[in-house]
């Protein structure tokens, strides 16, 4: 089993996702939990982009390297995962912004960032 670049990126993406999930489940500070979700998002994006890599090829843009328009099918990598990850990064930022503002509002109510103090929804 040869080790290529995208296998390294694949393993790294998986480890980052696992670290982010573990941090999200075991920390008690609200800001630490949101930070762990942000790390989880980054790992997921690395995973998706690593799935679209073909060895020995370059980016899907027509410029000096991929000169003619009909060279793209043999000299460029898969452009679809990049388009999906572009959207995913921006939406991840939006969700993180929402989570952070809610954490700030909760802090104004109870003056504490510890999730053990917010037990209203526990049965």
């Amino acid at each position, binding site marked *: 089993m040869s080790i290529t*670049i995208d296998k390294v990126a694949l393993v790294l993406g998986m480890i980052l996702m696992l670290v982010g999930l573990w941090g999200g489940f075991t920390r008690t500070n609200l800001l630490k939990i949101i930070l762990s979700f942000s790390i989880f998002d980054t790992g997921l994006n690395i995973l998706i982009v690593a799935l679209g890599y073909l060895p020995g090829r370059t980016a899907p843009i027509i410029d000096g390297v991929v000169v003619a328009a009909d060279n793209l099918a043999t000299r460029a990598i898969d452009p679809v995962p990049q388009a999906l990850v572009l959207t995913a990064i921006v939406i991840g930022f939006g969700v993180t912004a929402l989570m952070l503002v809610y954490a700030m509002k909760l802090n104004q109510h109870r003056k504490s960032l510890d999730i053990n103090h917010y037990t209203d929804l526990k049965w």
Partner: protein
Amino acid sequence: MEIFKLIMLSTLAVVMIISAVMAILSKEMPLAILASGAISLLASIFFLVLASPDVAMTEAAIGAGLTTFLFFIILRKTEQNKSEHEK
């Protein structure tokens, strides 16, 4: 060329995992936020070596810049609130 890329990516991967664990386990918040900013920056380098310049630019602008700044401004607002309460 391929072996050079492989060594560089492996080194960056080890640094990223160490800073991720440090971001979760540390006791001070500014250190954790800066570690997550470093993770986003190194992920942007990863995206460049994996031949996707669009994604690298987006991750560098939004992940390493705006998310770190957003965390810091919310941290300041919650610290202010806590210090007012303890007065």
